[in-house]
């Protein structure tokens, strides 16, 4: 991973700059649409949920593109020959990429904190929120990865998903109780509460864990199903 950043540092820095500018574009857009001044927008929550969006996107995008790259290089077949098979290898990778995605989102938030002055009030329990969100995020990554296994090129689908997820996550700044039952919402809400000095909500935490378990399980099942399907069709890593 470090080697990747060392080799492609310019791309990494450009990506981070793009993500910082993207947040500013969102802020300015909100300001002009709602005709409110910047301080009236709950910018802390907005930034926290933007961080959640970055964490989510960084994980499933890199995970799915990892599958794509291995397929292009032809090395995905060698991953299948690894101890435990392809699914074990991809699960390990997903956890590593999850850590990487978390660090990347944290780096983007730090830069935004530094340049915008929007501050966080970290609650003591904030890592619990991130931990509760991780299985949800991994589940989504597995679902996207399973599509990548079967369809190989799914970049445009990612763009669509990005456009759906960004307003979806940002809409969680205005929290309503029914949202606790929406996908990804309890985990994202918990992260927001943790980063903005909110109180720990046990029910939301349990809901997030339950949702994480379901999504993680669904993601693993989808990966296993697609892996079997591509091996039956003979299209593993074929372009």
């Amino acid at each position, binding site marked *: 991973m470090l080697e990747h950043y060392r080799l492609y540092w310019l791309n990494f820095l450009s990506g981070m700059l793009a993500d910082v500018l993207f947040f500013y574009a969102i802020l300015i857009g909100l300001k002009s649409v709602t005709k409110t001044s910047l301080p009236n927008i709950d910018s802390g929550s907005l930034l926290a949920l933007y961080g959640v969006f970055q964490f989510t996107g960084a994980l499933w995008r890199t995970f799915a593109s990892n599958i794509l790259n291995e397929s292009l290089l*032809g*090395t995905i077949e060698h991953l299948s*020959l690894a101890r435990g098979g392809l699914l074990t290898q991809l699960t390990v990778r997903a956890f590593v990429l999850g850590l990487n995605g978390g660090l990347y989102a944290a780096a983007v938030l730090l830069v935004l904190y530094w340049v915008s002055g929007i501050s966080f009030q970290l609650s003591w329990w904030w890592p619990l929120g991130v931990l509760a969100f991780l299985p949800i995020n991994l589940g989504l990554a597995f679902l996207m990865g399973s599509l990548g296994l079967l369809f190989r090129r799914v970049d445009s689908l990612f763009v669509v998903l990005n456009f759906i997820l960004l307003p979806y996550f940002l809409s969680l700044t205005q929290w309503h109780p029914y949202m606790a039952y929406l996908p990804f919402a309890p985990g994202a809400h918990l992260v927001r509460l943790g980063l903005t000095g909110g109180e720990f909500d046990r029910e939301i935490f349990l809901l997030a864990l339950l949702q994480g378990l379901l999504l993680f399980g669904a993601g693993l099942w989808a990966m296993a199903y697609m892996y079997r399907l591509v*091996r039956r069709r*003979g299209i593993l890593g074929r372009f």
Partner: protein
Amino acid sequence: MRLLVQNVHKRFGKLEALKGVSLELGAGEILGLLGPNGAGKTTLIKVVLGLLLPDAGEVVLEEGGARRRPQGHEFGVLLEGSRNLYVNLSLLVNALYFGGIRGLPPREVRPRFEAWLERFGLRDRLHAPLASLSRGMQQKAALALALALKPRFLLLDEPTLGLDPVSRREFEGILLELKKEGWGILLTSHDLEVVERVSDRVAFLHRGEVRRQGPTRALLRDWAGEGYRVRLAEPKAEALLKALGPGWSAEGPEVLFFLGPWEALREVLGTLPVEVLEVSRGTPSLEALFLHLFGEARPSPSA
């Protein structure tokens, strides 16, 4: 210890890529898997590796009376093309990575890999990126890694493809050494001279079926009665080959080999535009047998 492929069937839509293929490979032997393009060789290798699920049949590893499905990490593999290693990473990093995912710690993989590199004359390239190596060196490095991963069997899909004659000879020597050391090797190649020299047994695959299989020498001997070597006065074997029908192959600039009955040969001999110095009975080359079996064969759409 034996690897058994038993009655494997695989269909892709309307195309029946494998039709009840059965083979076996023991330790210390090289099995040459031959056939025209689209015969199903790579499909079969993928089934053996578990990269492709068969519609019927199975691949089993028989060891000490027990039978089980072999695991992917029990195979050392050279897949067709440049897709066995990461081209931008050094040989060492490749070895440590692939060793790691196969559950082998660096302290075990590194010395084994270095030993194989030493043997293949590549020890000094340990830290060089794969991309900086020639095609032949890349193949040797990939083979060194496949061996360093402690496999039980080696599956080599077109390992000599793109190699120059010197590298090809070296590769051939390596295969013979590995065989002596007890490795079981499944080899597919269109380089029939190499296959003939190294393999103990060959299997001819055509349109998903094993058309013929057995010990290489015995298979060729079986045809000896029908084979004739024709020595020409001028080096025109290749040129003449274009005008001759199936069953003919060139074994050098002045030597033609005909696999067929004497009566058929006698008819052709009188029409040859070059003086014939000698006609003798002989064992055909693997290439001659291949052309005899598949001379009329055309590749099937995809397999």
